[in-house]
């Protein structure tokens, strides 16, 4: 019994060390010429391959920065694993304010969003918080389950996809629920909006079109593999990747697939418009450039896993990797590699 207890304790401690931290893939955002990336519990600002600042200076294991950052009003906003929200001065990295109202009861995993002077914060405590850019709470909305997805807004209504299978439409000014829609599967993808409709992928391998004003489903289109991120909307076409490693171009009017291609690995990030086409990354480390017609002018292979949605800064596409040789890698529109970045230990 004694030996058993000692061995059990030792093993549990060893296993606990490896699995308990809230490990996730890097989150990316950018302004005109600076990239903001959350990685390993910190937020880093990087310009042309050089670090400008990092926040916090030392990783706090109890307050790991996890969410993808949001940029607005000269500040960068991030959340942490203890449900705190930070406003960081984009130029200096100094902390402007911290909100600890909900500390300890949840985590901020999903990306934050800044809409018309309102900061939207999805939390695993089931609440979507709306604050002004100084941190004052405007309203909060309770969903049925944990919130991992960045909200989006057209300036009047906030659209929130949730793991609880529901899509919520919430009044941006008041936080009042306008409608809700059960899509029958968990939603992790951010909806894409156009004039009258929104388009959201599900973990049940569907792309769904919904009327923004009423929440009425317009069409559902089955795809191969679950959809984890926001589709890229270009005119009347949706472009998105799936966990099964497919890239789709889909008609917004009826959900008919225009073309589909093998991505080479699970494509979980949102495609980004770049050069004459778009860039999609894959779990197997590929950075693929596609034309909107389904051509693939170039593909580059990195050592590691690319889950995060890429961003474009200074005419370069920036990708962030997990278990990669470099945290950030950049490419020009021709596919030529540009600067890379790895944080100093």
């Amino acid at each position, binding site marked *: 019994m004694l030996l058993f207890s000692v061995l059990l304790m030792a093993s549990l401690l060893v296993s606990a060390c490896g699995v308990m931290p809230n490990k996730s893939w890097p989150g990316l955002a950018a302004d005109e010429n600076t990239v903001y990336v959350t990685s390993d519990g910190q937020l880093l600002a990087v310009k042309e391959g050089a670090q400008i600042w990092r926040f916090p200076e030392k990783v706090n294991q109890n307050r790991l920065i996890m969410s993808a950052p949001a940029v607005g009003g000269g500040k960068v906003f991030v959340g942490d694993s203890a449900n705190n929200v930070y406003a960081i001065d984009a130029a200096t990295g100094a902390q402007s304010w911290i909100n600890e109202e909900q500390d300890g009861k949840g985590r901020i995993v999903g990306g934050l969003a800044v809409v018309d002077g309102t900061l939207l914060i999805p939390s695993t405590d089931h609440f979507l918080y709306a604050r002004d850019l100084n941190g004052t709470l405007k309203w909060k909305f309770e969903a049925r*389950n944990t919130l*991992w997805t960045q909200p989006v807004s057209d300036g009047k209504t906030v659209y929130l996809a949730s793991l609880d299978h529901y899509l919520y439409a919430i009044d941006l000014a008041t936080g009042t629920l306008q409608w809700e829609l059960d899509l029958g599967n968990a939603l*992790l993808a951010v909806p894409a909006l156009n004039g009258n409709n929104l388009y959201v992928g599900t973990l049940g391998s569907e792309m769904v079109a919904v009327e923004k004003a009423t929440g009425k489903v317009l069409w559902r289109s089955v795809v191969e593999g679950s959809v984890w991120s926001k589709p890229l909307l270009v005119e009347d076409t949706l472009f998105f990747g799936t966990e099964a490693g497919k890239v789709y171009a889909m008609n917004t009017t009826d959900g008919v697939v225009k073309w589909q291609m093998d991505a080479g690995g699970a494509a979980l990030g949102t495609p980004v418009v770049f050069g004459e086409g778009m860039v999609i990354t894959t779990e197997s480390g590929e950075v693929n450039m596609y034309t909107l017609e389904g051509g693939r002018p170039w593909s580059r292979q990195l050592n590691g896993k690319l889950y995060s949605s890429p961003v474009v800064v200074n005419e370069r596409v920036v990708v962030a990797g997990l278990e990669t040789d470099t945290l950030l890698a950049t490419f020009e529109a021709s596919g030529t590699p540009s600067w890379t970045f790895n944080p100093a230990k």
Partner: protein
Amino acid sequence: MDIWNAIIITPFTNVLLLIYNFVGQNFGVAIILFTLLIRLITHPLTVSQIKGAQGMQKLQSDKRFQEMQEKYKNDKEKLAQEQMKLYQELGINPLSSCLPMLIQFPIIIGLYQALIKAMANTPLDLLNLSRIIWPFVDSSSIIPLNNRFLWMDLSQPERLYIPGLAFGIPVLAVVVAITTYIQSKLLSPTANTSNPKDQSAMMTNMMNIYMPFLMGYMGYTLASGLSVYFIAGNIIGIGQYALLGKVNWRNLLPNFKPAAPPQPDSKVKRGKK
């Protein structure tokens, strides 16, 4: 690692999720039932381990064993030979207490890791979980996993917040420590007071003190789903031993001094001559 995942983690995680669905998507109840199920499956091993441990305990207090320790203290080879003879005479297999324990060990670690995997904390965790869910487990109804149980988020360390108090009370960590203490006291063999140099008894006493603190600390810092598992494991363990009549209830009394155990009746065991 892939073999470990295929043989232990994936089946454990899926069974846990099946139970979760079966009990109305209550992850706390699923953890308790899964712990119970694993304990039932490994019960024969526990019985075998208890029997082996009892035999070894009797051996420790056998006069002949103590005498040969003294007599051959400078001749390890001879001591080993004499010990083997005594094992045979008393019908004891020295491996019988270790082997069941070693078999149970990966199961318990696997259970622990399956719990963590099932409680997917981040999108990356969820991606990894979605890839090991068996086709017949209804993943669309499982995700999102309902991590709430009573006042707790099972994927986070537990604190009970009471209005007026500026801090949360780690109730589960305290219960983990208390149940660990009670279990270790109840399952400790009666101390051999006739032998003040009995190092095994000293170690047991020391572990009885430190283990609850260590387990309580783990309950304080790790996800509360694991605390539920620890508590369920402790209570089920006590019940298991009680059913086998191996619980020393009097060990819980504050100033109880156990009597020295009787010498084993070697004549009864002696059968092969």
